[in-house]
């Protein structure tokens, strides 16, 4: 949180002239998706300077990790990004497993991937829906939420809970699925592809929607890399960087899917519309992956034997995975003695996205600020952790 | 002439005088350009009211008074637009709307 002194040191304070007003967007504002605050200096409707202020949702998850045994930290990773909880579970589990050298049975890996991909679709639905809502169209958001309900039903069968699933365990997953789960998923996917077509037609053929997003908040590939973007936001800028391809984990190397890259279909590469359409395409890719998984999954154990007390070897390591909002990295430092980490640092995509705001907001109108911020798909708890 | 106040031309003319005087007082005593513009608007309105009154009570088939009232309204709008544009240009430059601060042209 920014105090008055910090603000003065961080913004070149020129005396505010008559036509310039300082305005607080947030911490409680409909379009900040949680508690995030921007301080905007407006000249009429145009932003002259902007400061992005984070920290209003800080729950010190990383500090809590230092006082918990490794398995007990798993539920906290749900809360890092509550929209895509299984992806966070998976990232943490993979990091610890690779350090401890734990085996994971094949079926458990498949189930983890099903959970992760369902959650990815879930998260992207929220992202595109909220983007539509922030540029003023309420109905697509509700439609997206309706489809998300089906996914939540599926996740409930899979994990037992609808949100904050806490599904992944070291060396496996917490429970197996009933047989009709796959049939239901298949049915949902058939329906979902049709829905996505309709959703896409409703928005991408809408002139107003296009005008609001095209050429707004353009980020070139270099710029995006400079801001250390990752995930869909980076891919929208034309960089085909997908950790499922580049640094495969689970069985993603066996999967056939393409990495959608922003190509400036309607405007410039890397504008807000590209970020929207990349997410739509990615949902379709996730559907493909899910279908492949379901054709390959076999019966088998879901949990390997793991030691009662997990003690990682001394040293530090970083493990990354592809979460819906970009690279999700767990940097674990262990002293090699206790069953608790010495330090955990979580690297999230949303936090990286926040760094671009002050730069990009300059010269935008208030409505563009909202559209650009929504197109980045920032979730407040992931920013602050 | 009827006894009704509303059908007596003098009542309209007196109202007009009072409004005009109020406008004049505003123009004379204010420092803020906005307030001066308001005073001018009041004075213009009072005169337009005069036109309508004479048109109505002198010979009601003669509508020239209405024409002049409309002209006054249009001109007042044009005047206000230009005045406020100048005012805002000055304000962006000087951060003030007071007549005292705009005296550079004084010899």
């Amino acid at each position, binding site marked *: 949180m920014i105090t008055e002194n910090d603000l003065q040191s961080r913004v070149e304070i020129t005396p505010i002239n*008559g*036509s310039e007003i300082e305005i607080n967007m947030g911490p409680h504002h409909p379009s900040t998706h949680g508690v995030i605050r921007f301080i905007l200096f407006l000249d009429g409707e145009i932003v002259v300077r902007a400061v992005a202020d984070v920290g209003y949702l800080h729950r010190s998850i990383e500090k809590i990790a230092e006082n918990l045994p490794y398995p007990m930290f798993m539920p906290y990773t749900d809360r890092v990004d509550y929209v895509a909880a299984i992806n966070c579970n998976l990232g943490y589990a993979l990091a610890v497993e690779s350090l401890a050298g734990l085996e994971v049975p094949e079926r458990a890996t498949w189930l983890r991937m099903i959970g992760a991909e369902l959650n990815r679709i879930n998260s992207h639905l929220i992202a595109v829906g909220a983007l539509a809502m922030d540029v003023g169209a309420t109905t697509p958001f509700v439609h997206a939420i309706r489809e998300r309900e089906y996914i939540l039903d599926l996740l409930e069968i899979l994990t037992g809970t609808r949100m904050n699933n806490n599904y992944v365990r070291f060396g496996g997953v917490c429970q197996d699925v009933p047989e009709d789960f796959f049939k239901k998923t298949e049915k949902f996917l058939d329906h979902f592809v049709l829905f996505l077509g309709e959703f896409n037609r409703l928005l991408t053929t809408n002139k107003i929607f296009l005008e609001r997003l095209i050429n707004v908040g353009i980020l070139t590939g270099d710029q995006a890399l400079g801001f250390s973007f990752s995930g869909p936001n980076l891919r929208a800028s034309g960089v085909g960087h997908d950790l499922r391809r580049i640094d495969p984990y689970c069985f993603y190397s066996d999967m056939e899917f393409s990495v959608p890259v922003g190509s400036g279909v309607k405007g410039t590469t890397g504008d807000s519309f590209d970020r929207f359409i990349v997410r739509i395409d990615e949902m379709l890719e996730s559907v493909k992956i899910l279908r492949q998984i379901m054709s390959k999954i076999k019966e088998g154990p879901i949990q390997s034997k793991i030691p009662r007390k997990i003690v990682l070897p001394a040293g530090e390591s970083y493990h990354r995975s592809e979460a819906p909002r970009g690279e999700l990295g767990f940097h674990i430092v262990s002293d090699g003695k206790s069953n608790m980490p010495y330090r955990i640092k979580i690297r999230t995509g949303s936090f990286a996205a926040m760094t671009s705001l002050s730069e990009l907001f300059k010269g935008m109108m208030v409505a563009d600020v909202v559209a650009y911020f929504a197109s980045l798909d920032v979730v407040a708890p992931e920013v602050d952790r | 002439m*009827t006894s*009704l106040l*509303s*059908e007596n*031309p003098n009542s*309209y*003319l*007196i*109202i007009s*005088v*009072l*409004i*005009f*005087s*109020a*406008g*004049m*007082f*505003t123009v*004379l*005593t*204010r*420092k*803020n350009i*906005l*307030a001066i513009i*308001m005073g001018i*608007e*009041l004075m213009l*309105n009072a005169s337009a*009211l005069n036109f309508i*009154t004479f*048109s*109505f*009570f*002198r010979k*009601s088939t003669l509508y020239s008074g*209405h*024409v002049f*009232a*409309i*002209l006054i309204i*249009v001109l007042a*709008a*044009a005047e*206000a637009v*230009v005045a406020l*544009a*100048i*005012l805002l*240009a000055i*304000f962006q*430059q000087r*951060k*003030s709307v*007071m*007549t*005292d601060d705009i005296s550079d042209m004084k010899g």
Partner: protein
Amino acid sequence: MKDAIFILVAVFAVGGALLTAASQSIINAALGLLLSLISIAALYIFQSADFVAISQILVYVGGVMVLLLFSIMLSSGSTDFFKNNPAMKVFPALLIVVVFAGLAIYALFSANLTFYPGQYGPSTREIGNLFLKDYILVFELVSVLIVVMLVGAGVMLRKELVRKAVASDGDSKDEKENKK
């Protein structure tokens, strides 16, 4: 009954004007003006001038008042309190105004004007005829004036021009200081 309404309207018209003249804050003055303008439109209706009355509301209330309020909001932060002009204190001004009003009212009653009772009737068609027959030149001139006004106001508020003016003004000030 008609008179009661008339007196009410008249009180509003004059009261609004007085509020404009005497109020302490600029926003109250604007409100007084608004009240006065609407009441004057009502007075027009008393005199069967409905077209003029509606024009008054459309142009003054919908146009001029909005512009005034806009300017007040944009320039708020500058002092908006009642201040006397150095050239004119309140009492001399009051004196001038009272003398003027007295003279005008005296003139009104001594002029011995002949009035006829007004007749009520629609006025729109006649006004239109007059504008397009007798006053066609005036009408066209007013159109030209409005075009000039539009262009002028647009040019005056163009940001880059204002900035240029500010910049050149700053230069000249610097030069002056250098000379000193």
